[in-house]
Protein backbone atom coordinates (compact mmCIF):
# COMPACT_ATOMS: atom_id res chain seq x y z
CA UNK A 1 0.00 0.00 0.00
CA UNK A 2 2.67 2.44 1.04
CA UNK A 3 4.80 1.80 -2.03
CA UNK A 4 1.89 2.16 -4.49
CA UNK A 5 1.07 5.46 -2.82
CA UNK A 6 4.62 6.54 -3.27
CA UNK A 7 4.56 5.48 -6.94
CA UNK A 8 1.38 7.43 -7.64
CA UNK A 9 2.91 10.47 -5.97
CA UNK A 10 6.00 10.15 -8.15
CA UNK A 11 3.98 9.90 -11.36
CA UNK A 12 1.78 12.88 -10.47
CA UNK A 13 4.83 14.85 -9.36
CA UNK A 14 6.72 14.11 -12.57
CA UNK A 15 3.84 15.16 -14.81
CA UNK A 16 3.23 18.36 -12.88
CA UNK A 17 6.91 19.26 -12.80
CA UNK A 18 7.35 18.75 -16.53
CA UNK A 19 4.32 20.95 -17.23
CA UNK A 20 5.58 23.67 -14.91
CA UNK A 21 9.10 23.49 -16.32
CA UNK A 22 7.56 24.14 -19.75
CA UNK A 23 5.51 27.05 -18.39
CA UNK A 24 8.69 28.52 -16.91
CA UNK A 25 10.80 28.15 -20.01
CA UNK A 26 8.25 29.05 -22.72
CA UNK A 27 8.57 32.86 -22.32
CA UNK A 28 12.36 32.62 -22.62
CA UNK A 29 12.09 30.24 -25.55
CA UNK A 30 9.57 32.53 -27.23
CA UNK A 31 11.87 35.48 -26.81
CA UNK A 32 14.65 33.55 -28.54
CA UNK A 33 12.54 32.23 -31.45
CA UNK A 34 10.85 35.61 -31.77
CA UNK A 35 14.22 37.25 -32.22
CA UNK A 36 15.30 35.04 -35.11
CA UNK A 37 12.22 35.26 -37.31
CA UNK A 38 11.51 38.20 -39.50
CA UNK A 39 7.92 39.20 -39.24
CA UNK A 40 8.17 42.89 -38.52
CA UNK A 41 7.43 43.86 -42.10
CA UNK A 42 4.03 42.25 -41.98
CA UNK A 43 1.35 44.08 -40.07
CA UNK A 44 1.33 41.73 -37.10
CA UNK A 45 4.10 39.95 -35.30
CA UNK A 46 3.40 36.28 -35.59
CA UNK A 47 6.46 34.18 -34.94
CA UNK A 48 6.01 30.43 -34.97
CA UNK A 49 6.93 28.23 -32.05
CA UNK A 50 9.02 26.19 -34.45
CA UNK A 51 10.52 28.74 -36.84
CA UNK A 52 10.28 27.92 -40.53
CA UNK A 53 12.93 30.35 -41.61
CA UNK A 54 15.67 31.74 -39.49
CA UNK A 55 16.63 35.36 -39.96
CA UNK A 56 18.91 37.63 -38.02
CA UNK A 57 17.35 40.79 -39.39
CA UNK A 58 15.65 41.66 -36.06
CA UNK A 59 19.15 41.87 -34.57
CA UNK A 60 20.40 43.95 -37.50
CA UNK A 61 17.52 46.36 -37.02
CA UNK A 62 18.03 46.53 -33.28
CA UNK A 63 21.73 47.36 -33.60
CA UNK A 64 21.11 49.77 -36.48
CA UNK A 65 18.47 51.76 -34.62
CA UNK A 66 20.18 51.92 -31.23
CA UNK A 67 23.54 52.48 -29.57
CA UNK A 68 23.42 48.93 -28.28
CA UNK A 69 27.20 48.42 -28.45
CA UNK A 70 27.80 51.47 -26.33
CA UNK A 71 25.10 50.35 -23.85
CA UNK A 72 26.66 46.91 -23.62
CA UNK A 73 30.05 48.48 -22.97
CA UNK A 74 28.56 50.68 -20.22
CA UNK A 75 26.78 47.76 -18.58
CA UNK A 76 29.87 45.57 -18.66
CA UNK A 77 32.12 48.30 -17.27
CA UNK A 78 29.71 49.17 -14.47
CA UNK A 79 28.99 45.54 -13.58
CA UNK A 80 32.71 44.68 -13.43
CA UNK A 81 33.57 47.69 -11.25
CA UNK A 82 30.62 47.06 -8.91
CA UNK A 83 31.55 43.40 -8.61
CA UNK A 84 35.13 44.28 -7.62
CA UNK A 85 34.14 46.99 -5.12
CA UNK A 86 31.36 44.91 -3.57
CA UNK A 87 33.50 41.80 -3.21
CA UNK A 88 36.41 43.74 -1.72
CA UNK A 89 34.54 46.00 0.70
CA UNK A 90 31.92 43.44 1.70
CA UNK A 91 34.58 40.81 2.47
CA UNK A 92 36.68 43.30 4.39
CA UNK A 93 33.76 44.55 6.47
CA UNK A 94 32.26 41.07 6.76
CA UNK A 95 35.57 39.81 8.12
CA UNK A 96 35.76 42.66 10.63
CA UNK A 97 32.20 42.05 11.86
CA UNK A 98 32.65 38.28 12.01
CA UNK A 99 36.12 37.86 13.45
CA UNK A 100 37.38 41.10 15.00
CA UNK A 101 36.09 42.38 18.29
CA UNK A 102 35.90 46.14 18.58
CA UNK A 103 33.77 48.59 20.54
CA UNK A 104 30.51 49.37 18.74
CA UNK A 105 30.76 46.53 16.25
CA UNK A 106 27.34 45.11 17.10
CA UNK A 107 25.67 48.52 17.11
CA UNK A 108 27.13 49.47 13.73
CA UNK A 109 26.28 46.10 12.20
CA UNK A 110 22.67 46.11 13.35
CA UNK A 111 22.21 49.73 12.31
CA UNK A 112 23.41 48.87 8.82
CA UNK A 113 21.20 45.81 8.69
CA UNK A 114 18.18 47.66 10.02
CA UNK A 115 18.23 50.11 7.13
CA UNK A 116 17.62 47.25 4.71
CA UNK A 117 13.94 47.51 5.63
CA UNK A 118 13.74 51.07 4.31
CA UNK A 119 12.47 50.94 0.74
CA UNK A 120 14.67 52.41 -1.99
CA UNK A 121 11.94 54.92 -2.86
CA UNK A 122 12.66 56.87 0.32
CA UNK A 123 16.30 57.63 -0.44
CA UNK A 124 15.81 58.03 -4.16
CA UNK A 125 14.80 61.70 -4.38
CA UNK A 126 17.47 63.10 -1.99
CA UNK A 127 20.04 60.82 -3.62
CA UNK A 128 19.10 62.17 -7.01
CA UNK A 129 19.33 65.79 -5.81
CA UNK A 130 22.61 65.05 -4.02
CA UNK A 131 24.17 63.56 -7.13
CA UNK A 132 22.83 66.01 -9.67
CA UNK A 133 22.66 69.33 -7.80
CA UNK A 134 25.20 69.02 -5.01
CA UNK A 135 27.98 66.90 -6.50
CA UNK A 136 27.17 67.82 -10.11
CA UNK A 137 27.61 64.18 -11.12
CA UNK A 138 24.42 63.68 -13.12
CA UNK A 139 24.83 61.42 -16.14
CA UNK A 140 28.23 60.05 -15.06
CA UNK A 141 29.57 56.58 -14.31
CA UNK A 142 30.50 57.79 -10.82
CA UNK A 143 26.88 58.60 -10.04
CA UNK A 144 25.72 55.18 -11.23
CA UNK A 145 28.46 53.31 -9.36
CA UNK A 146 29.07 55.13 -6.08
CA UNK A 147 25.78 54.51 -4.22
CA UNK A 148 25.97 50.80 -5.13
CA UNK A 149 29.69 50.36 -4.43
CA UNK A 150 28.98 48.10 -1.48
CA UNK A 151 25.60 46.86 -0.34
CA UNK A 152 24.55 46.02 3.20
CA UNK A 153 23.07 42.72 2.03
CA UNK A 154 26.47 41.67 0.71
CA UNK A 155 28.21 42.63 3.96
CA UNK A 156 25.68 40.48 5.78
CA UNK A 157 26.32 37.52 3.44
CA UNK A 158 30.07 37.81 3.88
CA UNK A 159 29.77 38.10 7.65
CA UNK A 160 27.73 34.90 7.66
CA UNK A 161 30.28 33.20 5.48
CA UNK A 162 33.36 34.52 7.30
CA UNK A 163 32.07 33.37 10.68
CA UNK A 164 32.23 29.76 9.46
CA UNK A 165 35.99 30.05 8.82
CA UNK A 166 38.36 28.63 11.47
CA UNK A 167 39.81 31.20 13.84
CA UNK A 168 42.98 29.26 14.60
CA UNK A 169 44.70 30.28 11.36
CA UNK A 170 44.06 33.93 12.14
CA UNK A 171 45.72 33.51 15.54
CA UNK A 172 48.65 31.68 13.99
CA UNK A 173 49.18 34.48 11.47
CA UNK A 174 48.94 37.08 14.21
CA UNK A 175 51.61 35.34 16.24
CA UNK A 176 53.78 35.37 13.08
CA UNK A 177 53.47 39.16 13.24
CA UNK A 178 51.38 39.39 10.09
CA UNK A 179 49.60 42.74 9.78
CA UNK A 180 45.82 42.72 10.10
CA UNK A 181 45.37 43.56 6.43
CA UNK A 182 47.97 40.92 5.60
CA UNK A 183 45.89 38.36 7.49
CA UNK A 184 42.80 39.40 5.56
CA UNK A 185 44.60 39.33 2.22
CA UNK A 186 46.76 36.21 2.62
CA UNK A 187 44.76 34.05 5.02
CA UNK A 188 41.10 35.00 4.91
CA UNK A 189 40.54 35.77 1.23
CA UNK A 190 41.97 32.44 -0.02
CA UNK A 191 39.81 30.55 2.48
CA UNK A 192 36.72 32.54 1.55
CA UNK A 193 36.97 31.78 -2.16
CA UNK A 194 33.69 29.81 -2.40
CA UNK A 195 31.76 32.62 -0.71
CA UNK A 196 33.49 35.23 -2.84
CA UNK A 197 32.68 33.36 -6.03
CA UNK A 198 29.01 33.34 -5.13
CA UNK A 199 29.02 36.99 -4.10
CA UNK A 200 30.79 38.00 -7.31
CA UNK A 201 28.35 36.13 -9.54
CA UNK A 202 25.26 37.50 -7.84
CA UNK A 203 26.60 41.05 -7.74
CA UNK A 204 27.53 40.88 -11.40
CA UNK A 205 24.08 39.66 -12.45
CA UNK A 206 22.29 42.15 -10.18
CA UNK A 207 24.39 45.06 -11.47
CA UNK A 208 23.84 44.05 -15.08
CA UNK A 209 20.09 43.82 -14.50
CA UNK A 210 19.76 46.98 -12.41
CA UNK A 211 17.30 49.38 -13.93
CA UNK A 212 15.87 52.07 -11.72
CA UNK A 213 18.88 54.04 -10.50
CA UNK A 214 20.76 54.14 -13.84
CA UNK A 215 17.44 55.04 -15.48
CA UNK A 216 16.99 58.05 -13.18
CA UNK A 217 20.53 59.33 -13.13
CA UNK A 218 21.39 59.06 -16.84
CA UNK A 219 19.87 61.24 -19.50
CA UNK A 220 22.19 61.03 -22.48
CA UNK A 221 21.99 58.14 -24.87
CA UNK A 222 25.70 57.35 -24.48
CA UNK A 223 25.47 56.88 -20.72
CA UNK A 224 22.61 54.41 -20.79
CA UNK A 225 23.10 50.84 -19.67
CA UNK A 226 21.64 47.97 -21.69
CA UNK A 227 18.56 47.77 -19.47
CA UNK A 228 17.86 51.51 -19.62
CA UNK A 229 18.54 51.59 -23.35
CA UNK A 230 16.21 48.66 -23.93
CA UNK A 231 13.43 50.39 -22.05
CA UNK A 232 13.88 53.55 -24.09
CA UNK A 233 13.82 51.45 -27.26
CA UNK A 234 10.53 49.84 -26.27
CA UNK A 235 8.95 53.26 -25.93
CA UNK A 236 10.39 54.52 -29.18
CA UNK A 237 9.66 51.44 -31.29
CA UNK A 238 6.62 49.83 -29.80
CA UNK A 239 5.60 48.31 -33.13
CA UNK A 240 8.77 46.41 -34.03
CA UNK A 241 8.28 43.35 -31.85
CA UNK A 242 11.00 41.42 -33.68
CA UNK A 243 13.65 44.02 -32.87
CA UNK A 244 12.28 44.28 -29.31
CA UNK A 245 12.70 40.54 -28.85
CA UNK A 246 16.21 40.78 -30.28
CA UNK A 247 16.99 43.56 -27.80
CA UNK A 248 15.51 41.63 -24.89
CA UNK A 249 17.68 38.68 -25.89
CA UNK A 250 20.79 40.88 -26.09
CA UNK A 251 20.06 42.15 -22.59
CA UNK A 252 19.55 38.68 -21.13
CA UNK A 253 21.81 36.36 -23.13
CA UNK A 254 25.11 37.13 -21.36
CA UNK A 255 23.48 36.30 -18.02
CA UNK A 256 21.85 33.15 -19.40
CA UNK A 257 25.24 31.94 -20.70
CA UNK A 258 26.80 32.81 -17.35
CA UNK A 259 24.07 30.86 -15.60
CA UNK A 260 24.61 27.72 -17.66
CA UNK A 261 28.37 27.80 -17.21
CA UNK A 262 28.27 28.50 -13.46
CA UNK A 263 25.02 26.77 -12.59
CA UNK A 264 26.42 25.03 -9.52
CA UNK A 265 27.42 28.32 -7.88
CA UNK A 266 24.07 29.91 -8.68
CA UNK A 267 22.08 27.08 -7.18
CA UNK A 268 24.23 26.72 -4.06
CA UNK A 269 24.72 30.43 -3.59
CA UNK A 270 21.11 31.36 -2.98
CA UNK A 271 21.03 29.47 0.28
CA UNK A 272 23.94 31.37 1.86
CA UNK A 273 22.52 33.67 4.46
CA UNK A 274 18.90 32.81 3.78
CA UNK A 275 18.66 29.41 5.43
CA UNK A 276 19.59 29.11 9.05
CA UNK A 277 22.53 26.75 9.02
Amino acid sequence: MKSTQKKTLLVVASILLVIWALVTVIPMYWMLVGSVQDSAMSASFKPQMIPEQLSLSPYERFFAKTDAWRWLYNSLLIAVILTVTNVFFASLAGYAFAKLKFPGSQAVFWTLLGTMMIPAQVTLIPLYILMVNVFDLGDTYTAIILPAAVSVGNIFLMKQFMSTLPTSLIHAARIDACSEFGIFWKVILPMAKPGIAVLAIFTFVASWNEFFWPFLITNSNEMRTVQVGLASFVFAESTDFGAMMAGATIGALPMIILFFSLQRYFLQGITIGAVKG
Partner: protein
Amino acid sequence: MQTALAPKPSVPRTSRVARFWRDYGWAYLFILAPVLLFLIFTLYPVLTALVMSFQKYNIMNSTWVGLDNYERLVKDETFWKSIKNTVIFTVGTVPVNILITFVLSYFIYQMKSKWQTFFKATMYLPAVASGVTISIVWLAIFDPTDSGLLNRFLGLFGLDPVIWLGQSGTALFSLILMNWLGSHGAGIILYLAAMGGIPKSLYEAADIDHASGWTQFSKITWPLLKPTTLYLLVTGVITSFQVFISVYLMTQGGPNFATTTIAYLIYETAFKFYEFGLASAQSFVLAVIIIVISVIQFKYFSSDIEY
Protein backbone atom coordinates in the same frame (compact mmCIF):
# COMPACT_ATOMS: atom_id res chain seq x y z
CA MET B 1 40.24 39.12 20.27
CA GLN B 2 43.59 40.68 19.75
CA THR B 3 44.30 41.95 23.24
CA ALA B 4 43.58 38.67 24.89
CA LEU B 5 45.61 36.53 22.55
CA ALA B 6 48.62 38.48 21.39
CA PRO B 7 51.45 38.14 23.89
CA LYS B 8 51.28 41.41 25.71
CA PRO B 9 54.64 42.98 26.36
CA SER B 10 54.48 45.48 29.15
CA VAL B 11 54.69 48.85 27.47
CA PRO B 12 53.93 51.27 30.21
CA ARG B 13 54.41 54.49 28.30
CA THR B 14 51.96 53.92 25.45
CA SER B 15 49.01 56.16 25.98
CA ARG B 16 45.54 54.66 26.16
CA VAL B 17 44.57 56.31 22.89
CA ALA B 18 47.52 54.83 21.05
CA ARG B 19 46.76 51.42 22.49
CA PHE B 20 43.12 51.73 21.48
CA TRP B 21 44.09 52.41 17.89
CA ARG B 22 46.68 49.65 17.86
CA ASP B 23 44.06 47.18 19.06
CA TYR B 24 41.03 48.31 17.13
CA GLY B 25 42.26 50.67 14.40
CA TRP B 26 42.38 47.99 11.72
CA ALA B 27 38.83 46.89 12.41
CA TYR B 28 37.57 50.46 12.07
CA LEU B 29 39.58 50.87 8.89
CA PHE B 30 38.02 47.69 7.49
CA ILE B 31 34.48 48.97 7.95
CA LEU B 32 35.29 52.57 7.01
CA ALA B 33 34.21 52.51 3.37
CA PRO B 34 30.80 50.87 3.94
CA VAL B 35 30.09 53.16 6.89
CA LEU B 36 31.00 56.29 4.92
CA LEU B 37 28.86 55.17 1.98
CA PHE B 38 26.05 54.40 4.39
CA LEU B 39 26.26 57.86 5.99
CA ILE B 40 26.31 59.68 2.65
CA PHE B 41 24.01 57.53 0.55
CA THR B 42 21.52 56.14 3.07
CA LEU B 43 21.38 58.03 6.35
CA TYR B 44 21.69 61.53 4.91
CA PRO B 45 19.09 60.86 2.18
CA VAL B 46 16.64 59.30 4.66
CA LEU B 47 16.88 62.32 6.96
CA THR B 48 16.65 64.72 4.02
CA ALA B 49 13.60 62.89 2.70
CA LEU B 50 11.97 63.19 6.10
CA VAL B 51 12.56 66.94 6.14
CA MET B 52 11.43 67.25 2.52
CA SER B 53 8.16 65.51 3.30
CA PHE B 54 7.25 68.55 5.46
CA GLN B 55 8.30 71.02 2.80
CA LYS B 56 7.14 72.39 -0.47
CA TYR B 57 10.46 71.51 -1.99
CA ASN B 58 12.30 73.75 -4.36
CA ILE B 59 15.99 73.58 -5.18
CA MET B 60 16.38 77.32 -4.57
CA ASN B 61 14.16 77.88 -1.57
CA SER B 62 11.98 75.32 0.12
CA THR B 63 9.16 76.38 2.37
CA TRP B 64 8.05 74.52 5.46
CA VAL B 65 4.45 73.42 5.08
CA GLY B 66 4.05 71.13 8.07
CA LEU B 67 1.72 68.24 7.43
CA ASP B 68 0.34 69.68 4.19
CA ASN B 69 1.88 66.99 2.01
CA TYR B 70 0.50 64.22 4.21
CA GLU B 71 -2.90 65.89 4.22
CA ARG B 72 -2.82 66.20 0.46
CA LEU B 73 -2.02 62.57 -0.10
CA VAL B 74 -4.68 61.35 2.32
CA LYS B 75 -7.24 63.34 0.31
CA ASP B 76 -5.83 62.16 -3.00
CA GLU B 77 -7.97 59.50 -4.67
CA THR B 78 -5.10 58.31 -6.85
CA PHE B 79 -3.02 57.68 -3.76
CA TRP B 80 -5.69 55.46 -2.21
CA LYS B 81 -6.15 53.71 -5.51
CA SER B 82 -2.42 53.07 -5.70
CA ILE B 83 -2.47 51.56 -2.21
CA LYS B 84 -5.44 49.41 -3.14
CA ASN B 85 -3.71 48.23 -6.33
CA THR B 86 -0.50 47.46 -4.46
CA VAL B 87 -2.38 45.51 -1.79
CA ILE B 88 -4.36 43.55 -4.40
CA PHE B 89 -1.15 42.82 -6.29
CA THR B 90 0.61 41.67 -3.11
CA VAL B 91 -2.25 39.56 -1.78
CA GLY B 92 -2.80 38.16 -5.26
CA THR B 93 0.80 37.18 -5.84
CA VAL B 94 2.73 36.43 -2.65
CA PRO B 95 0.59 33.66 -1.06
CA VAL B 96 -0.07 32.02 -4.43
CA ASN B 97 3.62 32.11 -5.29
CA ILE B 98 4.60 30.60 -1.96
CA LEU B 99 2.04 27.83 -2.46
CA ILE B 100 3.28 27.12 -5.99
CA THR B 101 6.88 27.22 -4.78
CA PHE B 102 6.15 24.89 -1.92
CA VAL B 103 4.27 22.31 -4.02
CA LEU B 104 6.96 22.34 -6.71
CA SER B 105 9.72 21.95 -4.10
CA TYR B 106 7.86 19.14 -2.37
CA PHE B 107 7.53 17.29 -5.68
CA ILE B 108 11.11 17.98 -6.75
CA TYR B 109 12.29 16.64 -3.41
CA GLN B 110 10.81 13.24 -4.28
CA MET B 111 12.96 13.03 -7.44
CA LYS B 112 16.38 11.48 -7.88
CA SER B 113 19.20 13.98 -7.43
CA LYS B 114 19.95 14.25 -11.17
CA TRP B 115 16.36 15.28 -11.84
CA GLN B 116 16.38 17.59 -8.85
CA THR B 117 19.26 19.51 -10.40
CA PHE B 118 17.51 19.59 -13.77
CA PHE B 119 14.28 21.04 -12.40
CA LYS B 120 16.08 23.45 -10.09
CA ALA B 121 18.12 24.80 -13.01
CA THR B 122 15.14 25.03 -15.36
CA MET B 123 12.96 26.86 -12.91
CA TYR B 124 15.72 29.20 -11.78
CA LEU B 125 16.64 30.21 -15.32
CA PRO B 126 14.17 33.13 -15.76
CA ALA B 127 15.52 34.71 -12.57
CA VAL B 128 18.75 35.63 -14.37
CA ALA B 129 16.85 37.77 -16.88
CA SER B 130 16.24 41.39 -15.95
CA GLY B 131 12.86 42.88 -15.16
CA VAL B 132 13.15 44.83 -18.41
CA THR B 133 13.66 41.66 -20.46
CA ILE B 134 10.82 39.85 -18.72
CA SER B 135 8.50 42.84 -19.24
CA ILE B 136 9.32 43.05 -22.95
CA VAL B 137 8.67 39.35 -23.44
CA TRP B 138 5.36 39.58 -21.59
CA LEU B 139 4.36 42.66 -23.57
CA ALA B 140 4.51 40.39 -26.59
CA ILE B 141 2.77 37.53 -24.80
CA PHE B 142 -0.08 39.87 -23.78
CA ASP B 143 -0.28 41.42 -27.24
CA PRO B 144 -3.98 42.29 -27.61
CA THR B 145 -4.33 41.09 -31.20
CA ASP B 146 -4.67 37.41 -31.90
CA SER B 147 -0.92 37.25 -32.52
CA GLY B 148 -0.19 37.50 -28.79
CA LEU B 149 0.92 34.18 -27.37
CA LEU B 150 -1.74 34.14 -24.66
CA ASN B 151 -4.53 35.02 -27.06
CA ARG B 152 -3.31 32.33 -29.45
CA PHE B 153 -3.50 29.89 -26.57
CA LEU B 154 -7.07 30.99 -25.81
CA GLY B 155 -7.81 30.62 -29.51
CA LEU B 156 -7.05 26.90 -29.23
CA PHE B 157 -10.14 26.64 -27.04
CA GLY B 158 -12.18 28.84 -29.35
CA LEU B 159 -12.03 31.87 -27.03
CA ASP B 160 -11.89 35.44 -28.28
CA PRO B 161 -8.73 37.50 -27.91
CA VAL B 162 -8.54 39.60 -24.73
CA ILE B 163 -7.13 43.13 -24.50
CA TRP B 164 -5.02 42.10 -21.53
CA LEU B 165 -3.20 45.28 -20.57
CA GLY B 166 -5.48 47.78 -22.26
CA GLN B 167 -8.63 47.63 -20.14
CA SER B 168 -9.04 48.31 -16.44
CA GLY B 169 -10.79 45.01 -15.77
CA THR B 170 -7.85 42.81 -16.77
CA ALA B 171 -4.72 45.00 -16.56
CA LEU B 172 -3.85 44.42 -12.91
CA PHE B 173 -4.78 40.77 -13.18
CA SER B 174 -2.43 40.46 -16.16
CA LEU B 175 0.47 41.70 -14.07
CA ILE B 176 -0.50 39.22 -11.35
CA LEU B 177 -0.73 36.38 -13.86
CA MET B 178 2.71 37.21 -15.22
CA ASN B 179 4.02 37.07 -11.65
CA TRP B 180 2.44 33.65 -11.02
CA LEU B 181 4.03 32.18 -14.09
CA GLY B 182 7.35 33.84 -13.45
CA SER B 183 10.27 32.47 -11.57
CA HIS B 184 9.93 30.46 -8.40
CA GLY B 185 13.50 29.30 -8.73
CA ALA B 186 15.11 30.99 -5.75
CA GLY B 187 12.30 29.89 -3.42
CA ILE B 188 12.48 26.31 -4.68
CA ILE B 189 16.20 26.15 -3.96
CA LEU B 190 15.67 27.52 -0.45
CA TYR B 191 12.84 25.07 0.31
CA LEU B 192 14.87 22.14 -1.02
CA ALA B 193 17.83 23.09 1.15
CA ALA B 194 15.54 23.35 4.18
CA MET B 195 13.82 20.02 3.38
CA GLY B 196 17.23 18.38 3.16
CA GLY B 197 17.98 19.71 6.62
CA ILE B 198 15.06 17.94 8.31
CA PRO B 199 16.45 14.94 10.22
CA LYS B 200 15.36 11.63 8.65
CA SER B 201 14.95 10.16 12.13
CA LEU B 202 11.83 12.28 12.68
CA TYR B 203 10.08 10.57 9.76
CA GLU B 204 11.31 7.15 10.83
CA ALA B 205 9.91 7.69 14.30
CA ALA B 206 6.63 8.85 12.79
CA ASP B 207 6.53 5.72 10.59
CA ILE B 208 6.95 3.51 13.65
CA ASP B 209 4.03 5.33 15.28
CA HIS B 210 2.01 4.71 12.08
CA ALA B 211 1.53 8.41 11.54
CA SER B 212 -0.29 9.07 8.27
CA GLY B 213 1.35 10.97 5.41
CA TRP B 214 -0.78 13.99 6.22
CA THR B 215 0.14 13.91 9.90
CA GLN B 216 3.82 13.68 9.02
CA PHE B 217 3.41 16.62 6.68
CA SER B 218 1.48 18.82 9.08
CA LYS B 219 3.47 17.90 12.21
CA ILE B 220 6.99 17.63 10.81
CA THR B 221 7.52 19.02 7.32
CA TRP B 222 5.42 22.20 7.44
CA PRO B 223 6.44 23.41 10.94
CA LEU B 224 10.13 22.80 10.27
CA LEU B 225 9.91 24.73 7.01
CA LYS B 226 8.33 27.73 8.69
CA PRO B 227 11.53 29.84 8.80
CA THR B 228 11.89 29.44 5.02
CA THR B 229 8.22 30.27 4.48
CA LEU B 230 8.62 33.34 6.68
CA TYR B 231 11.66 34.45 4.73
CA LEU B 232 9.81 34.08 1.42
CA LEU B 233 6.78 35.85 2.84
CA VAL B 234 8.71 38.84 4.14
CA THR B 235 10.93 39.26 1.08
CA GLY B 236 7.95 38.61 -1.21
CA VAL B 237 5.83 41.31 0.42
CA ILE B 238 8.69 43.81 0.45
CA THR B 239 9.46 43.33 -3.26
CA SER B 240 5.86 43.31 -4.37
CA PHE B 241 5.17 46.52 -2.47
CA GLN B 242 7.90 48.09 -4.57
CA VAL B 243 6.90 46.69 -7.96
CA PHE B 244 7.89 49.20 -10.61
CA ILE B 245 9.55 48.00 -13.83
CA SER B 246 6.65 45.95 -15.16
CA VAL B 247 4.21 48.78 -14.42
CA TYR B 248 6.44 51.38 -16.03
CA LEU B 249 7.18 49.37 -19.16
CA MET B 250 3.90 47.57 -19.69
CA THR B 251 1.05 49.83 -18.58
CA GLN B 252 2.39 53.19 -17.35
CA GLY B 253 0.01 52.82 -14.45
CA GLY B 254 -3.00 52.73 -16.75
CA PRO B 255 -5.59 52.29 -18.01
CA ASN B 256 -7.45 54.73 -15.80
CA PHE B 257 -4.96 54.17 -12.91
CA ALA B 258 -5.89 50.48 -12.80
CA THR B 259 -2.23 49.47 -12.39
CA THR B 260 -0.82 52.52 -10.61
CA THR B 261 1.14 51.06 -7.69
CA ILE B 262 2.62 53.10 -4.84
CA ALA B 263 6.15 52.83 -6.20
CA TYR B 264 5.00 53.97 -9.62
CA LEU B 265 2.98 56.84 -8.14
CA ILE B 266 6.04 58.02 -6.18
CA TYR B 267 8.09 57.96 -9.38
CA GLU B 268 5.46 59.99 -11.27
CA THR B 269 4.96 62.48 -8.45
CA ALA B 270 8.69 63.10 -8.19
CA PHE B 271 10.05 62.84 -11.68
CA LYS B 272 7.08 63.73 -13.85
CA PHE B 273 5.44 66.44 -11.74
CA TYR B 274 8.54 67.39 -9.72
CA GLU B 275 6.55 67.43 -6.46
CA PHE B 276 9.51 66.26 -4.41
CA GLY B 277 7.91 67.07 -1.05
CA LEU B 278 4.71 65.19 -1.78
CA ALA B 279 6.64 62.25 -3.22
CA SER B 280 8.78 62.09 -0.07
CA ALA B 281 5.63 61.95 2.05
CA GLN B 282 4.32 59.13 -0.14
CA SER B 283 7.61 57.26 0.20
CA PHE B 284 7.46 57.49 3.99
CA VAL B 285 3.95 56.07 3.99
CA LEU B 286 5.31 53.20 1.88
CA ALA B 287 8.21 52.73 4.31
CA VAL B 288 5.90 52.64 7.33
CA ILE B 289 3.58 50.12 5.65
CA ILE B 290 6.52 47.86 4.75
CA ILE B 291 8.08 48.03 8.21
CA VAL B 292 4.77 47.41 10.00
CA ILE B 293 3.92 44.43 7.81
CA SER B 294 7.40 42.93 8.25
CA VAL B 295 7.22 43.27 12.01
CA ILE B 296 3.74 41.71 12.14
CA GLN B 297 4.92 38.82 9.98
CA PHE B 298 7.90 38.22 12.25
CA LYS B 299 5.78 38.35 15.39
CA TYR B 300 2.99 36.18 14.08
CA PHE B 301 5.08 33.65 12.25
CA SER B 302 8.10 33.22 14.45
CA SER B 303 6.27 32.95 17.79
CA ASP B 304 6.11 29.17 17.72
CA ILE B 305 9.32 28.30 15.94
CA GLU B 306 11.67 26.22 18.01
CA TYR B 307 15.20 25.39 17.10
